[in-house]
């Protein structure tokens, strides 16, 4: 049973990670964010499986914290599309 749980954890982690590494290159920032979101869910899943298999206690709270904050990167990404702050130099002369 332990080996099965570990194998499942490895399988899930690797499918989502392959997705992440492939998608980090783009095409768009929205795609990168999606890949990170998928890795977040897959990561939590593998964390629970690994903890259940290796008998580490208290991992539910780690998963709970990660699940609570899962949307934060995406929210920050969407907010970052906001227009520049009034004090920022114009984007056009940034270089």
């Amino acid at each position, binding site marked *: 049973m332990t080996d099965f749980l570990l194998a499942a954890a490895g399988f899930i982690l690797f499918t989502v990670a392959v997705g992440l590494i492939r998608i980090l290159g783009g095409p768009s920032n929205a795609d990168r964010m999606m890949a990170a979101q998928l890795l977040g869910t897959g990561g939590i899943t593998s964390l629970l499986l690994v903890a259940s298999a290796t008998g*580490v206690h208290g991992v539910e709270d780690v998963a709970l914290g990660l699940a609570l904050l899962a949307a934060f990167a995406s929210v920050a990404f969407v907010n970052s599309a906001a227009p520049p702050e009034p*004090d*920022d*130099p*114009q984007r056009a*002369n*940034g270089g």
Partner: protein
Amino acid sequence: MSAPTLAGLIGAALVGLGLYGLITNPQPLRKILAFNLIGSGVFLLFGIIARKGAAAGFVADPVPQAMVITGIVVAFSASALAIALVLRLFQETGRVTLRPDASAGPPANGADT
């Protein structure tokens, strides 16, 4: 190879990788990321010492773990300060270069000096 040793080797590789990024990446934000990689590599080295020091019924030595927790919080506050500095530099000059010979860029609109 045991899990702690493996984690220690990743830690060593992360320190090297982060150091390379810190030296060669010209952008300040990337340097901050690289510096954080070095930090997490060092934390992992602490982690293996903690795990290998498991004794007295504990799965790992609590002292290095507590130091890593302190370290993570301090690393975050240092990164936040560094990013605030970079953003201020950008506000003032419109660029974020660290080259000493680069003169101030186009005048920033409305920024105080």
